[in-house]
C-alpha cells in the first residue's frame, strides 16, 4: 500500500514537472525516457522475474505499433480501438515465440528472442506493399484529436506516457503479490520445486511472456503516434531491444523502480552527451557506452543497489547481501 501511494505521488510530481517545464525539448526527452522506462518495466516482468533475458523485446513495440497504424490508415480505425488489436497481435506473437523458446536456457533464449525479432523485421521490410517497407509509415498530422492520439503539444504525450508508466508500475507492485506473481517467484528459485508444488511451469512462463509483450505493445501503440513515424529498422531493431534490456539491468532488475532509474540515467547521459559533444562526432556514443561499463564495474546489480550500498555506508549499516539479484 505504501508503495502504491509512493508511486502515485511520483506520478503526480512528474506530471506537474512536465506541465511546468517551459522547454519542449526537455519534455520530449522526458517523454522518450518514460516510454523507455515503461518498456523496461515490461521487460523486467519477464526477465527480472524469471531470469530469461530477452533481446528481442522491440518486436512487440513494432508489431503493436504497425497493426494499430495500419488499421488507422487503411480502415480509419481509431488507435484507441486499433491499439487493442495491436496489443492482441503482440500477445499472439509472444505466445508463439514464448511457447517455442521459453524452455531454452540462458544465452539460448537470449539469442532465440534476438533472432525472432530479426525475422519479423525482415518480414516487415520484405512485404512493403503492406507495411511500407524500409521507408516506414509517416503519420500525416491533421489536427489535435485525442481519438487519433494526435496532439500538437508534446506535454499531452508526456502525460499519457508517465500515466501509463505509473499504471504499469502499480500493476507490477500488486502483481508481485498476486497468484501469478507467487508462481513466478517459485519458478525463478527452482523450476523443479515449482513443478513439484503443482505449478505448470511452461504454461506460466509463456503467460508471463504474453503479459510482458502486452505491456510493451501498450507503450508501442502510443509511442508511434508520439514520434509520428514508424521506422521499421528502429521500432523492430536490435538497438531498441538492447536499450530496453540495458536500462532495466542498469537500474537493477531486483527493484520495482529499477527500470525507471535506469531509463533516467541512460537518457540523461545520452541527451547530455549529445547536447554537449554531439558536434564532436563519436564522443557522445563513447561516453554513453563507457559510463554503462563504469556502472557495471562499480555495482553489477545496478543503480538501485548502488544507491542502497551508498545509503548503507552513510548509515554505517552493512550493504545489501551480495550475490546477483537476477539469475
Amino acid at each position, binding site marked *: 500500500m505504501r508503495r502504491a501511494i509512493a508511486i502515485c505521488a511520483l506520478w503526480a510530481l512528474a506530471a506537474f514537472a512536465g506541465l511546468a517545464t517551459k*522547454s519542449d525539448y526537455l519534455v520530449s526527452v522526458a517523454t522518450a525516457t518514460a516510454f523507455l522506462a515503461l518498456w523496461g518495466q515490461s521487460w523486467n516482468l519477464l526477465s527480472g522475474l524469471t531470469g530469461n533475458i530477452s533481446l528481442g523485446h522491440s518486436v512487440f513495440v513494432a508489431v503493436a505499433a504497425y497493426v494499430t497504424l495500419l488499421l488507422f490508415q487503411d480502415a480509419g480505425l481509431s488507435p484507441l480501438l486499433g491499439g487493442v488489436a495491436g496489443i492482441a497481435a503482440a500477445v499472439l506473437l509472444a505466445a508463439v515465440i514464448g511457447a517455442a523458446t521459453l524452455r531454452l536456457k540462458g544465452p539460448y533464449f537470449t539469442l532465440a528472442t534476438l533472432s525472432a525479432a530479426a525475422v519479423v523485421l525482415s518480414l516487415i521490410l520484405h512485404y512493403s506493399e503492406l507495411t511500407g517497407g524500409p521507408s516506414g509509415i509517416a503519420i500525416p498530422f491533421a489536427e489535435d484529436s485525442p481519438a487519433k492520439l494526435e496532439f500538437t503539444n508534446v506535454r499531452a504525450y508526456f502525460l499519457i506516457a508517465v500515466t501509463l508508466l505509473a499504471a504499469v508500475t502499480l500493476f507490477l507492485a500488486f502483481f508481485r503479490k498476486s497468484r501469478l506473481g507467487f508462481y513466478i517467484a517459485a519458478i525463478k528459485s527452482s523450476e523443479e520445486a515449482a513443478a513439484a508444488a503443482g505449478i505448470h511451469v511452461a504454461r506460466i512462463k509463456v503467460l508471463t511472456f504474453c503479459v510482458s509483450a502486452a505491456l510493451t505493445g501498450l507503450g508501442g501503440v502510443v509511442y508511434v503516434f508520439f514520434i509520428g513515424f514508424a521506422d521499421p529498422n528502429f521500432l523492430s531493431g536490435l538497438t531498441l531491444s538492447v536499450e530496453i534490456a540495458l536500462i532495466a539491468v542498469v537500474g537493477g532488475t531486483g527493484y520495482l523502480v529499477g527500470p525507471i532509474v535506469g531509463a533516467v540515467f541512460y537518457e540523461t547521459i545520452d541527451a547530455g552527451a*549529445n547536447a554537449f559533444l554531439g558536434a564532436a562526432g563519436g564522443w557522445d*556514443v563513447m561516453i554513453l557506452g563507457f559510463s554503462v561499463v563504469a556502472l557495471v564495474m562499480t555495482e553489477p546489480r545496478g543503480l538501485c543497489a548502488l544507491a542502497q550500498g551508498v545509503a548503507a555506508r552513510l548509515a554505517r549499516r552493512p550493504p545489501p547481501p551480495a550475490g546477483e539479484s537476477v539469475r
Partner: protein
Amino acid sequence: MRKIFLSSLTLAVGGALAAIFAGYTARAADQVDIAVIAPLSGPNASVGEMIVNASKLAAEDVNTAGGIKSLGGAKLNLIIADATNDPQGAITTTERVLTQSKVAGAFGLALSPLTTAALPAFVKHHVPVITSAISDALVTPSNGGYLFQIAPKGSAFGNQQVEFLKFLNEKYKMGITKAAILYVNNPYGIATEKGIEQLAQKAGLDIVLNSAYPESITDASPLVSKVQQSGAQVLFPVSYISDAGLLLTALRSANSHVLVIGGGAGFIWPAIGQSLGDKVNGLTSVASWNLDSKNIKSDPKLAAVAARYSKTYNTFMPEQAGEAYAGISVLAAAIEAAGSADPAKVRLALQTLDVKSGGGALMQPGEVSFDANGANTHVMPVMIQWQNNVPHTVFPEAVATSAVTKP
C-alpha cells in the same frame, strides 16, 4: 572506483541539465544562427562529417564576403548537432536545437528517415529546413512548406542513369538491352530503383533482374552470381560505400564484363577511389552533384571552393559536401533577401528565391529555386566517370566538362 563513478555520474547529469537550462543563449545582434543537423555518430557519421566540413567552408565564405549585408553585415553562426542514426534521436536533437536557439533556418538530416521524423518539429517551430535527402516522398504538400530539397529527387537519378545508357548505346553502338537492378533495401535504394524501372520500360530496356538486398552485407558474391545468371549486359547498382566496394571487388574477381552504371552514394565517394586505386578509373555513376560540372568550371569563384575543400580536408569535394555548401549559401541568400533572421520570413524568401550566383550556383545547372512542394526546380543529377582517380562530369551535355571514355 565507486567514488570515481559517482562523481563522473553527477558530472554527466549536471552537465546535461546545465546544457538544457543554459538553453536560450543570448545572441549577439550581429550574428545569425543556422542549424546544421546531421548524423555525426553511427553508420552514417561520415556523411554527416562531409556536410559539416562543407557547411563550415560556406559560412566562412559568406562571412569573409561581409556577412548578411541586409542585416548590417551580420555573421553566420553554425549550430552543429548530431542527428544520431535513429528517428528518435533526430527528433530530440532537432527539438533541442530549435528550442534552445532562435535559428533562421536549418540544413542537413541527409537521410530520408531522419528527415521524415524531424520534419514535424521544424513545422511546429516554423523553421524552414533544407535537406540533402533525395526521397520523392519528402517533397509533397504534406511537408507543410517547411522542407526544401536541394538534391534531385530519387526517381530523377534512375531516369538519368537510363538516359546515360541510351547515350552510351548510341555513342558506342553497345546494343545493350538486358539490364539488372540491385538496390540496397532502404528508402534511398527504393526511390532510385523506381526511377530506373520507370524509364527502363520507356527506353525499351529488358529488366532481367530487379532485386533489393539487405543493408550491411558482408559478401557480395551472391549478388554477382545473380547478375551473371540473369545474363544482364548492364548493372544499375544502388549501394552505400561498403556494399559498393564489395560488389565491385566481387565483379572483378568473377571477371564479369557487365557494364556498371552506379547509383550514386558509394560509387562516387572518395573512399572508393582511394581503395581501388587506379582500378576505379572508367567507372561511371550518377551523382546529385559533382565538383567539375560546367557551371562550376566556368566560374572561378566556385572552382576555388572545390579547390579549397580538397586543400582543407585533403580529399576531393564529394557530393554531400557540394550540396551542403550550396545549401548553406542558399539559406544565406534567403536571409539576405528576407532582410531578417526571422525563420518565417526566411521561409517565404526560400519559396520565391531564384539563386543564379554565389555559393548556391554550385548546384547543377547553376541555378536554384524551389517549387510549391520544396523541390529544386532546376537541379538535375549528373553522370560522372572516374578519370585519374577523380569523378569527372560526362553527362548530360548541358553540364558535362569531360568526354566519356568507353567504360
